[in-house]
C-alpha cells in the first residue's frame, strides 16, 4: 500500500485514514440515520443505537473481518467457500449462500437510489430544482414523476425517461469500474472520491451551523433545530415507554447493520483477500468509528436541523416527511431552495450522496464475482458479464414496477431487514462457537496493530447472538404477519408485484445454489488433489 518505516509519508497516512474511515460511509449515514432518530424518540434513540453499536456493531465487524481472513487463508474467497471450509461439510456452502445473494439483490435497487442522487445533483447544477422555490408540492411532483410513482412503467414513458438514462449510466459505470478490476479502477476512484466526500460533508455542515433563522420565524433557530434532532422526544410517552418499545431497538439495530455494511457478505469477501500479517482489528475498528462519526456528527447535524430552521416543527412532526426518501429528496431540496447559495449546496450535498452510494454499490458486486470465479472456474470478465445480466434483470424489474415503490420496498424488506438479521446471526454463531474463542481470538489478533481484549470473545459467543436472536424474534412477531398478508392477498386488478419480487428472489437463490453445487464439485476435486478447501 505504501512506503514503510520512519520515512512513511503523511500523504500516505492521510490517504489510508480517509480510505479506511470512509469505507463504510453511504446513504444510511446522511439520510436513513436522521430519519430513524427523529421517528424513534430523537435523542433517546441514541441509547439503543449506542448499545447496538457496542454489543453488535463492533463485535460483528471484528468477527466478520476475522472470519473472512480465516477463510481466505484456507483458500476461499466467497462466503459459501468460507462457510464450507469452516463447517467442514459441503452443505456448509449453502449456509453461506445468503452472503452472495444479498449483495446482488440489494444492488438491484440501490443503484436506482444512487442514480437519483446523481440526478438531483445534475438538476441543481442546471438550476431546475432551484426553480421550484419553496414549493414542497412541486418538488414532490418532480420526485414522483422521476421515479414513476404514479403507475407501473411510468419511468419508461416518453418525456419521463431522463431519470432512466441516469439509472442506466450508474448501472454501467459500476460495472465498468468492477470490470476493470478493483486495484486499478476502484482504488484510483476512491483515492479521489473519499477525501472529496469528507470535505463536501464538512462544508455543508459548516453552512448549516452558520444558518440564521428566517425573519418571520425567529424561534426556528439552529439550537432549536439541534434540539429537535437530539433531545428526547417531547411527546406524551415517557422515557421508559420509548425505551421499552421494541420497534425503537429494532430500528437502532437495523440502522447499525445497514450503515456498517455488516451481515451481508461484503466484509467477509473482501477480508478473505488479506494476508496473514495484515491487520483486521484496527482496520475494522477505524472503519466502524469513521462510519459512526459520519453518521452521528455529519448525518445527525445536517439534514434535520436545517429542515427545522426552514420548514419548522409542524412539517417535520409528520413521519411521512422524515422518511429516508421524503427527507432526502423532497424535504431537503426544499431546504436548499430557501438557503443562501442553496443551488451550490444542493449540488454539493447530492453529489456527496452519489459518491457515498457508488462506493457502497461497487463493493456489493465483488462477493458474487468471487463465487462465480470459484464455482464455475471462470475468470473475472465472464463473471462480471453473468452478474451484469442478473442485476440488469432485477434493476429493470424494480424500475418498471415503480408504482408506490412497491417492488423496491419489498426487495428492501426481505434483503436489508429480514435476511440480513439471519446471516449476521449465523455468522456470529459460527465465529463464536464453531471457530471458537481460542482460534477466533487468534484469527482476530493475527497481525493486529492494536491490542484486543480477550473478553470480546465472550461478547461474540453469548451477548451478541442473544441480543440478535431476541431482536429478530420480536421483529418477526410484529412485522411478518403484515408482510404475509401482502403475499397471500395481492391487490385486485393490479400485477402481483410482491409475489413477483419474491419469485425473482427465489430464482436468484436457485441460480446461486446451482453455482454452489458446481463449486462443491470443484472443491472436492481440488481436495482430492491435495489443494486446501
Amino acid at each position: 500500500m505504501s512506503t514503510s518505516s520512519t520515512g512513511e509519508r503523511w500523504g500516505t497516512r492521510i490517504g489510508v485514514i480517509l480510505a479506511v474511515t470512509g469505507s463504510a460511509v453511504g446513504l444510511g449515514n446522511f439520510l436513513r440515520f436522521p430519519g430513524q432518530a427523529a421517528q424513534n424518540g430523537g435523542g433517546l434513540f441514541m441509547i439503543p443505537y449506542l448499545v447496538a453499536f457496542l454489543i453488535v456493531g463492533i463485535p460483528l465487524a471484528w468477527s466478520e473481518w476475522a472470519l473472512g481472513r480465516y477463510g481466505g487463508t484456507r483458500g476461499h474467497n466467497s462466503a459459501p467457500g468460507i462457510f464450507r471450509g469452516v463447517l467442514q461439510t459441503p452443505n456448509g456452502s449453502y449456509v453461506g449462500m445468503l452472503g452472495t445473494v444479498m449483495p446482488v439483490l440489494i444492488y438491484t435497487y440501490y443503484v436506482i437510489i444512487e442514480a437519483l442522487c446523481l440526478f438531483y445533483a445534475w438538476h441543481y447544477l442546471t438550476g431546475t430544482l432551484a426553480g421550484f422555490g419553496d414549493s414542497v408540492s412541486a418538488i414532490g411532483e418532480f420526485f414522483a414523476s422521476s421515479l414513476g410513482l404514479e403507475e407501473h412503467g411510468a419511468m419508461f414513458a416518453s418525456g419521463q425517461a431522463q431519470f432512466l438514462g441516469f439509472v442506466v449510466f450508474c448501472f454501467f459505470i459500476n460495472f465498468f469500474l468492477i470490470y476493470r478490476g478493483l486495484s486499478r479502477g476502484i482504488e484510483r476512484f476512491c483515492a479521489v472520491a473519499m477525501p472529496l466526500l469528507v470535505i463536501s460533508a464538512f462544508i455543508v455542515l459548516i453552512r448549516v451551523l452558520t444558518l440564521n433563522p428566517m425573519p418571520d420565524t425567529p424561534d426556528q433557530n439552529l439550537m432549536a433545530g439541534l434540539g429537535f434532532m437530539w433531545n428526547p422526544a417531547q411527546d406524551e410517552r415517557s422515557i421508559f415507554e420509548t425505551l421499552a418499545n421494541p420497534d425503537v431497538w429494532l430500528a437502532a439495530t437495523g440502522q447499525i447493520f445497514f450503515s456498517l455494511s455488516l451481515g451481508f457478505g461484503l466484509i467477509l469477501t473482501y477480508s478473505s483477500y488479506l494476508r496473514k500479517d495484515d491487520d483486521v482489528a484496527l482496520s475494522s475498528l477505524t472503519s466502524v468509528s469513521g462510519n459512526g462519526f459520519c453518521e452521528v456528527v455529519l448525518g445527525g447535524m445536517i439534514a434535520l436541523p436545517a429542515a427545522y430552521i426552514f420548514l419548522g416543527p409542524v412539517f417535520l412532526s409528520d413521519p411521512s416527511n422524515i422518511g429516508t426518501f421524503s427527507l432526502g429528496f423532497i424535504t431537503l431540496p426544499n431546504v436548499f431552495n430557501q438557503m443562501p447559495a442553496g443551488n451550490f449546496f444542493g449540488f454539493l450535498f447530492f453529489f456527496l450522496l452519489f459518491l457515498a452510494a457508488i462506493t457502497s454499490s461497487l463493493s456489493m458486486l465483488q462477493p458474487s464475482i468471487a463465487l462465480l470465479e470459484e464455482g464455475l472456474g471462470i475468470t473475472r470478465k465472464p463473471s462480471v458479464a453473468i452478474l451484469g445480466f442478473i442485476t440488469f434483470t432485477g434493476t429493470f424489474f424494480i424500475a418498471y414496477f415503480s408504482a408506490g415503490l412497491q417492488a423496491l420496498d419489498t426487495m428492501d424488506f426481505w434483503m436489508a431487514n429480514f435476511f440480513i438479521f439471519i446471516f449476521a446471526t449465523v455468522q456470529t454463531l459460527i465465529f463464536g462457537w464453531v471457530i471458537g474463542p481460542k482460534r477466533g481470538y487468534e484469527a482476530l489478533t493475527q497481525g493486529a496493530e492494536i491490542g484486543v481484549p480477550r473478553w470480546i470473545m465472550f461478547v461474540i459467543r453469548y451477548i451478541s447472538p442473544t441480543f440478535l436472536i431476541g431482536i429478530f424474534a420480536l421483529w418477526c412477531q410484529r412485522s411478518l404477519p403484515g408482510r404475509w398478508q401482502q403475499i397471500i392477498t395481492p391487490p385486485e386488478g393490479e400485477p402481483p408485484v410482491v409475489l413477483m419480487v419474491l419469485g425473482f428472489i427465489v430464482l436468484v437463490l436457485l441460480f446461486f445454489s446451482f453455482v454452489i453445487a458446481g463449486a462443491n464439485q470443484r472443491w472436492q476435486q481440488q481436495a482430492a488433489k491435495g489443494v486446501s478447501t
Partner: protein
Amino acid sequence: MLTAIGGMTTLLAWCVYKIVSTPGATEHLHSPLDIDPGDTEG
C-alpha cells in the same frame, strides 16, 4: 448528544492516533475497496 458525538469522535480520534503513532501501520491497514482480489485481468 454530547455522549454520542463525544464518544464517536473520541473513538475515531483514538484509531487515527494509533494509525499515526504505530510505525508501519499503514502497510497492514485496509479498507474493503482497496483490497486487491488478485483476479484482475490485463
